C-alpha cells in the first residue's frame, strides 16, 4: 500500500477498488465475531475449504464479518446478492449450502429464520430487520473489518477527506452541534458543545479519547461496533481531533474484548499504511497519532476521570469535577472523551449533513440508538432504531416477543445505573428525556427483557451487589451507602425484611445519589428506586410474609 497524498488520491484509490469489484460473484457473509462462541469460525473455514476443493474461486467469495444483529440464530450467514439469511449453521451444513443454495438457488428450510412455524428465507422479510434503521451499524456485518479497502469502498474516510479539504474546524463543530448528536455513553451530553469546550481550552497538547470500557452487564453495542467496523470509530476520532485541534488519541478498550482489540490494532496499522493516520494526513497540515490502551477489569473506569487515571497507570479512581477533563484531563491537558458509538456517528453526519441526521429522531434526541436486546425475548441481538421508537416495537416487533407462555413484565434499561420500565410504559417513544421520566436512563443501550417469572426485588439486589462490588471505595456515600442498601435488600430477599426497610432504602438511596463523587454512586440507587416505584407490592409481600419461600440466593459479598 502506498500513502494517499491528497483528496484526489483517495478518490482515485476508491475508483480503482470499484473497478476491481466483481458484481457477478456470490458473497457469503459470515459473522465470526459474536457468533464465534457458537462455532462460526469452523463454518468459515469449511466454506473456504469447499471453495478450494470445488474450485469456486471465481464464483464465490467468503467474507468474515462483524455482528449481523440476529444473535439468537448464531452462527448466522447472509448470501448476497440474493439476500438469503441462514442461522444455526454448522460446518456439516456447508457442502449442502454450496451445492443446493449457491449452485442451484434452492432454499434449505431448516436453516431459515422461523417464527410461529413460518419460515422466512430472505432477510428483507424478517421482521427483526424491518423496523431497524442502520446508520452506525451500516457496515457492521457487511464488510470484513480487517480490510480497510472494504471500508473505503463504502465511502470510508470520505468524511475525513471532506473536512480536511473544505470545512474549517469551527464549522465541523457547528455541523455536529446542528446535528443534535448527544453522547451515546449514557449521559446524553451534546457532543458538539463538548468539542467546543476542548477547542477553547488553552493547552499546548490536546488529547482525544475514545471510551470503549463498556462495562454495563447486558451491554454489547460498543463491542460490536469495534469488532465489526473499527474504521468508523477511527474516522470519527480523526474528525473530532481535527475540529478541536488534537494530535494524539487513545482508544481505551475493555480487556474482556480481545476481538475488538485485535480488529482495532489491524485497522490502525492499515490506516497508517495508507497515510490516514500519522503526519500530514492526506497532504494537509493535520497530523494525528492513535494508540490503544487496554483496561484491566474495573467498571468504574468507564467514568471519565477514573478512565484518565487508568490511562496514566494509576488506580482507576474518579476525582471531583471541576476541573473537567475538557480543561484539565489526561496529564493535565485538555482532553475530549466520547463513547465508541458517538464517534461512529460522526462520519455520517459530516458526509450526509446535519439536516439529514436531524430529520431522524425526536425533538430532543436526534439520530438512532443501538440497543443490545437480551434476556427473556425471542430475538436477542443487536438492534439500531431511530430515537422515538417505542419499547413495544423493540420488544415485540423486532424482538419477536417473549418466549414460552410467559408475559412481558419489564425492560431493564441502562444497566446498574438505570431502572425497570414496566408494561404500562410499553408505548412510550424512547429518547433521553422520556426514559428518564419513567425512572430509567438511556444508558449505553443495554435492554434486558424480563418475563413475569422475574422477581423485581431480586433484580434490585442483583444490581446493588454489582455496584457495591465495583464501588472504588474513595467516597463514603457510595462505599457505605451501596453496602447498607445491599444488606437490606439481601435480608428482604431472604424473607427477613423489616417493616421500615422500604423507608430506609429510600433514604439511603437519596443520600447516596446526592452525595456520591461520581456517576457510579450517583446512579447506583436507580434500580432500587425504580423497582420500589413500580413493584412496591413485591417488596411488601416479601417483608410481610415472613414464611414466604425465600428467593434464590447468590453467594454474598462481604467486603466493603
Amino acid at each position: 500500500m502506498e500513502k494517499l497524498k491528497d483528496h484526489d488520491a483517495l478518490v482515485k484509490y476508491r475508483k480503482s477498488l470499484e473497478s476491481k469489484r466483481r458484481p457477478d460473484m456470490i458473497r457469503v457473509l459470515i459473522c465470526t465475531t459474536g457468533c464465534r462462541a457458537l462455532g462460526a469460525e469452523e463454518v468459515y473455514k469449511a466454506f473456504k475449504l469447499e471453495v478450494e476443493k470445488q474450485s469456486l474461486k471465481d464464483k464465490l467469495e467468503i467474507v468474515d464479518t462483524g455482528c449481523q444483529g440476529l444473535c439468537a440464530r448464531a452462527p448466522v450467514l447472509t448470501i448476497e446478492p440474493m439476500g438469503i439469511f441462514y442461522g444455526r449453521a454448522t460446518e456439516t451444513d456447508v457442502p449442502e449450502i454450496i451445492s443446493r443454495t449457491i449452485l442451484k438457488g434452492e432454499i434449505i428450510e431448516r436453516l431459515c429464520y422461523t417464527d410461529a412455524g413460518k419460515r422466512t428465507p430472505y432477510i428483507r422479510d424478517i421482521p427483526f430487520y424491518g423496523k431497524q434503521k442502520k446508520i452506525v451499524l451500516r457496515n457492521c456485518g457487511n464488510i470484513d473489518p480487517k480490510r480497510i479497502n472494504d471500508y473505503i469502498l463504502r465511502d470510508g474516510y470520505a468524511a475525513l477527506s471532506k473536512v480536511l479539504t473544505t470545512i474549517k474546524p469551527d464549522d465541523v463543530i457547528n455541523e455536529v452541534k446542528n446535528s443534535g448528536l448527544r453522547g451515546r455513553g449514557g449521559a446524553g451530553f451534546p457532543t458538539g458543545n463538548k468539542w467546543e469546550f476542548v477547542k477553547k481550552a488553552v493547552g499546548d497538547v490536546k488529547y482525544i479519547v475514545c471510551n470503549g470500557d463498556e462495562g454495563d452487564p447486558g451491554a454489547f453495542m460498543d463491542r460490536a461496533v469495534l469488532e465489526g467496523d473499527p474504521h468508523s470509530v477511527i474516522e470519527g476520532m480523526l474528525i473530532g481531533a481535527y475540529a478541536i485541534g488534537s494530535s494524539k488519541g487513545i482508544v481505551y478498550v475493555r480487556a474482556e474484548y480481545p476481538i475488538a482489540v485485535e480488529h482495532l490494532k489491524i485497522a490502525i496499522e492499515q490506516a497508517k499504511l495508507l497515510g490516514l493516520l500519522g503526519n500530514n494526513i492526506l497532504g494537509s497540515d493535520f497530523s494525528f497519532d492513535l494508540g490503544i490502551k487496554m483496561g484491566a477489569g474495573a467498571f468504574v473506569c468507564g467514568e471519565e476521570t477514573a478512565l484518565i487515571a487508568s490511562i496514566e497507570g494509576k488506580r482507576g479512581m474518579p476525582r471531583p469535577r471541576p476541573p473537567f477533563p475538557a480543561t484539565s484531563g489526561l496529564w493535565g491537558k485538555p482532553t475530549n472523551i466520547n463513547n465508541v458509538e458517538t464517534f461512529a456517528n460522526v462520519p455520517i453526519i459530516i458526509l450526509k449533513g446535519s439536516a439529514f441526521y436531524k430529520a431522524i429522531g425526536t425533538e430532543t434526541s436526534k439520530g438512532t440508538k443501538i440497543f443490545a436486546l437480551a434476556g427473556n425475548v425471542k430475538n436477542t441481538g443487536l438492534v439500531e432504531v431511530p430515537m422515538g421508537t417505542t419499547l413495544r416495537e423493540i420488544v415485540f416487533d423486532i424482538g419477536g416477543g417473549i418466549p414460552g407462555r410467559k408475559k412481558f413484565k419489564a425492560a431493564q434499561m441502562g444497566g446498574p445505573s438505570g431502572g425497570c420500565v414496566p408494561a404500562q410504559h410499553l408505548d412510550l417513544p424512547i429518547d433521553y428525556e422520556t426514559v428518564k421520566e419513567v425512572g430509567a436512563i438511556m444508558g449505553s443501550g443495554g435492554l434486558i427483557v424480563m418475563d413475569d417469572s422475574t422477581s423485581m426485588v431480586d433484580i434490585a439486589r442483583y444490581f446493588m451487589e454489582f455496584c457495591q462490588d465495583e464501588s472504588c471505595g474513595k467516597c463514603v456515600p457510595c462505599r457505605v451507602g451501596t453496602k447498607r442498601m445491599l444488606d437490606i435488600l439481601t435480608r428482604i430477599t431472604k424473607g427477613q425484611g423489616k417493616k421500615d426497610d422500604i423507608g430506609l432504602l429510600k433514604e439511603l438511596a437519596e443520600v447516596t445519589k446526592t452525595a456520591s463523587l461520581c456517576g457510579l454512586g450517583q446512579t447506583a440507587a436507580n434500580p432500587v428506586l425504580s423497582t420500589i416505584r413500580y413493584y412496591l407490592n413485591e417488596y411488601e409481600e416479601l417483608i410481610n410474609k415472613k414464611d414466604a419461600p425465600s428467593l434464590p440466593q447468590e453467594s454474598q459479598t462481604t467486603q466493603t
Partner: protein
Amino acid sequence: MHKNVTLNKENTPSVDLTKCNTILSKYSKATHADLIPILQQIQDAYGYLPMAALEEITVRTRIPISKIYGVVTFYSQFSMEPRGRHTIKVCVGTACHIKGAPDIKKKITEVLHINEGETTSDYKFTYEPVACLGTCFLAPVMMVDGRYYGKLTIEKTETILKSY
C-alpha cells in the same frame, strides 16, 4: 474490587525472571503510563504476578513498589497468586442472572469444592465470576480459557467441567 492479598514470601517458589526481563527491556524509559501494560504482559507470561517480578519492575522503572501494589490490587484482572491451568469465567451479567447463572455458580462450587476467586488445590482450575462477557444471547454462559459454553444447564455444566 478490593482483593485481600496475603504475601507469603517463604513459600513462594523461586521465579525465573528471564521472561520478565525480556518484557521490561522493551521499556527502557518506562513512565507510570507503562505500568499497566507491563503488568498485563507479565501476567500473560507467568499466569500471575510473582512478587519477584514486581520487585524487578520497581528496580527497573523506579516506580515505588507501594504504587505497583496499589494498582495490582485495584484491578480485577491482576492476581498475585499462582493460578490454575484452566480459568473458568462465569458470566454474572443481567441476562445470565435472570436465566439461571446463580444455579450454575452453585454447581461449580459443588463440583470443584472452591468458591469464586479461588483455585483448586491441584492447580487445575481457577474459578472467577465476570460482570458480563457481552454474549447475552448465549445466556447463561461461561468461558473456560478462550472457549465459550452457552445456554448452560446444571447437567451441562458438570459434563463440561469433567471433560477437562
